[in-house]
């Protein structure tokens, strides 16, 4: 990953934190004073490098993991915003990435009953009795990251 792509990736993540959403490629183009096609190419390379996940067939950001920009059952309140986590792992990753306390409001995959977890100073202070389950072995995580 070259320095330009790292700069674009950094801009995406900082924009997520600042604005609660990723920038469009037009916004990246404006920020870097480049053609939008150059920004689109950078987004595609970042996707291929697993540094971002784009919605299929688009250059719109689906995930800047652990942040997700499509609806899921995992709602994360942290750092003065409400976020979406792609999965149980990413949901707990949002307060970890932000370096702040957080609350995860989700649901049991079996019965749909609400479950809640709280993180304070990095430690789990609520929800420690819950389980998390991952179906996909580590080597296959990126084969279908949306399912993983």
């Amino acid at each position, binding site marked *: 990953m070259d320095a330009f792509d790292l700069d674009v990736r950094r801009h995406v993540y900082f924009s997520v934190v600042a604005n609660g959403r990723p920038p469009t490629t037009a916004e990246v183009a404006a920020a870097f004073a480049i053609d939008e096609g150059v920004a689109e190419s950078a987004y595609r390379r970042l996707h291929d490098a697993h540094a971002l996940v784009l919605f299929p067939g688009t250059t719109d950001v689906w995930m800047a993991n652990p942040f997700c920009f499509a609806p899921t059952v995992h709602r994360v309140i942290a750092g003065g915003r409400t976020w979406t986590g792609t999965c149980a792992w990413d949901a707990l990753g949002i307060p970890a990435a932000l370096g702040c306390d957080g609350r995860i409001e989700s649901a049991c995959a079996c019965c749909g009953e609400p479950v809640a977890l709280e993180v304070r100073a990095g430690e789990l202070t609520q929800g420690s009795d819950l389980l998390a389950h991952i179906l996909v072995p580590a*080597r296959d995580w990126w084969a279908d990251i949306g399912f*993983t």
Partner: protein
Amino acid sequence: MVYLRSEEHLGRWLDANGWEPGATLGAIKLNDLSREWWGTRLDARWRPRAAAESQAIIDRLGLAGEFWSYG
């Protein structure tokens, strides 16, 4: 990865979907993993992690076996 309320709910969820079990973590272990895995994601000097670095995190947390082999 999903949350489940208990082993009983895990078993019912797997049965209902016809899925083979993968790996189960307690929420405390998952929080530890999340901290290690995602904690540097917003660092200004972030660089892509090599597979060996990802595997080292997994190993450090005691997640052993073929399932957790990052490849």
